[in-house]
């Protein structure tokens, strides 16, 4: 990484932290915080990957990853993953044109939100669950998908669908015209998922989907989630260490007991291992890494960090004692989000299986 780029990342990190971050002492609160979408837009954080000509920054996923990491450190409610990461990336894979460019420009300034209609349980895409039918004055789409991230709040839904001559990505307005989006409340109150059912919804625009495009988007999603998990565990390590220095029992800071010290030390090692794997995955996704190599990097990161974040956040609860078990401390929100992240876009078991099968010398299956 060049010096200029890492300086840029530091600046970006500072800007993002200022908007989404909270001081560790103000962790949590009674309800999850809502992301300040206007501030994110004003700071240019919603259009990092959008071309400059369309009002974006023309940057890469490496920069988006910096923001995702910060969002993990201070999770709030907002469609950054669905809209800013996935919908934007899906549009960027599509052929330029007025409809695409207009939506990208709106996503970049936050006047519209969108999402990619993709089951969040997907590790490998099995083909579209939607299909397009031509009508007298255009086309309609029908189909259904479960567990779609950020579906309910999206103005536009981008559905991978079966078209007359292959898979296409179609844009549908979330206005109820033949379309039902149902929110599914989760134990984790900071992410939203919903089901999307379309029955003859008018297609606003459509683009052919290049082969492998959706699988690439799944990898992107998995990597984005890994960045978030890294942020979660980093924040929990910091909060726990800070707490262990000030909480006294037996006339000493609890951080002076070896049991607590060793637990914190293990948390640090786990965070650093995760950081190394996430950095490689982000690099692979942001650059032109060959698909096989990229997939391996993504699976390494997603499997390891998915599990590690649950472990570290769980330890944070434990080391905070009774306080850690209160709602108000906010630590539970990290543990719940880490547990959900572990499941999104491939569990550790699935990614480990994928990783080993992709290794050179592994027998074919």
């Amino acid at each position, binding site marked *: 990484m060049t010096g200029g780029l890492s300086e840029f990342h530091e600046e970006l990190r500072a800007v993002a932290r200022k908007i989404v971050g909270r001081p560790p002492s103000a962790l949590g609160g*009674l309800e999850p915080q809502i992301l300040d979408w206007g501030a994110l837009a004003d700071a240019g954080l919603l259009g990092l990957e959008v071309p400059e000509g369309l009002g974006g920054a023309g940057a890469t996923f490496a920069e988006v990853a910096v923001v995702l990491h910060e969002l993990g450190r201070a999770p709030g409610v907002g469609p950054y993953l669905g809209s800013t990461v996935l919908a934007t990336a899906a549009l960027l894979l599509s052929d330029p044109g007025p409809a695409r460019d207009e939506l990208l420009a709106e996503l970049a300034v936050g006047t519209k939100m969108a999402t990619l209609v993709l*089951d*969040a*349980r*997907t590790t490998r895409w*099995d083909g579209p669950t939607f299909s397009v039918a031509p009508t007298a004055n255009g086309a309609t789409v029908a189909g259904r998908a479960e*567990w779609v991230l950020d579906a309910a709040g999206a103005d536009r839904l981008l559905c991978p669908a079966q078209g007359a001559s292959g898979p296409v990505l179609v844009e549908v307005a979330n206005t109820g015209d033949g379309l039902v989006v149902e929110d*599914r*409340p*989760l*134990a*984790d109150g900071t992410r939203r*998922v919903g089901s999307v059912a379309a029955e003859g919804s008018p297609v606003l625009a459509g683009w052919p989907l290049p082969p492998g495009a959706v699988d690439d988007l799944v990898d992107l999603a998995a990597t984005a989630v890994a960045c978030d998990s890294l942020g979660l565990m980093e924040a929990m390590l910091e909060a726990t260490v800070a707490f262990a220095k000030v909480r*006294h*029992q*037996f*006339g*000493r800071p*609890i951080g002076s*007991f*070896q*049991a*607590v010290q060793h*637990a914190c030390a293990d948390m640090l090692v786990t965070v650093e291992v995760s950081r190394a794997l996430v950095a490689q995955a982000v690099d692979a996704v942001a650059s032109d890494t060959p698909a096989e190599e990229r997939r391996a990097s993504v699976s390494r990161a997603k499997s390891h960090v998915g599990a590690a974040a*649950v472990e570290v956040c*769980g330890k944070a*609860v*434990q080391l905070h*004692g*009774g306080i*850690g*078990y*209160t*709602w*108000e401390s906010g*630590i*539970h929100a990290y*543990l*719940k989000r880490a*547990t*959900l992240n*572990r*499941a*999104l876009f491939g*569990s*550790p*078991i699935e990614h*480990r*299986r994928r990783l080993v099968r992709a290794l050179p010398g592994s027998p074919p299956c």
Partner: protein
Amino acid sequence: MSSRDVTAFRSEVRRWCAEHVPADWRVRQTRASDEAYVEFQRWWFQELRHAGYAVPHWPKAWGGGMSTAEQVALYQELAAHDAPRPTLAFVAVHHAAATLLEAGSEEQQLRHLPAILDGEIWAQGFSEPEAGSDLANLRTRAARHGDVYVVNGQKLWASGAQHADWCLLLARTDPDAPKRHGISYLLMDMRSPGIDVRPVRQATGESEFCEIFLEDVEIPVANRVGPEHEGWAVAQATLNAERGMTVLELAERLWQAGFRWLLELCSIPGPGGSRPIDDMVVVDHLARFESQLVALRAMCATTVQRHDEGRSGPADASVVKLFYSELLQRMTDFGAEIAGVAGHARTDKPRSSGWESGAWVLDFIGSWEWTIPGGTSEIQRTIIAERGLGLPREPARQDR
């Protein structure tokens, strides 16, 4: 009791469960109000009581007297029939009863043990903001004025205190004595003036533990258990009950209900059509849990047996509590992992259920309710090392 008798007893419990466990209790207890929860708990406890199942671990004279083998059979069948747990009576039948039986006066026993059977609800007011793991650091002050103690202070994390009729209270009666020697053990009527109970919302979203503020609360000296200033020793009886006996029931639950549901969960085909159990990794986990559960159940039975024979080892209860609580955490963690994204949409853990309810994510979060209270896992390991293995203490720990 011979094995034949236990078999007959088991059939009796089975028949009873078939007739008495309400088929719809999970639905009724899902998102139930506090009132509906308390009413259901009171009713269910009386059902158990009339069958003779409410306090099997108490001495015969007070309405218990079951052998360990019978208790195991009882708990197995209750769990196998998905019976609700008498959660609200937990502190009363375990901690309060153990304290009264070990150290209470005859009058106190007569006053409270039958009342507990009639539904008297108890809470435990031990912990304070500055006294968690270091319980002996408690500051709540009980100043003696003739026949009463006047109590001032703050208790924290008292489970179920908002519903309690009585509270087990540790308070400092001699502020000048070394930490462990100035504490007295009191029974506090929760209707006394000066008590302010505030439920605290916990990680699972429920509000079942409470802060208790005490301002000039008068407790009759007659409600002291054991000698004045010697409450610490009495408290050990209570803490031991929490760590040891209770796990007998919970281990059978984890086995009959928790593991069974985990097996069911792993047999449901996923989005791709294959079942988790077709994967060797999942099989490996299930087999480990199974073996560990069999061991846990055997260890619990031995612990209870040794306790009844007065041969308890100094760390027996800690071994069992530590292993149970961390096994519960591992199993619910694995359940959450296998249940995946869909598991997060199960936000409807019914009240009155066990620590494993099938709402795996909430069960996993709830498992810290076993690794933190009653002596954290870290403290249990220290007890096992120091008292069980006789290792030297960590230097400069000021707890005496």
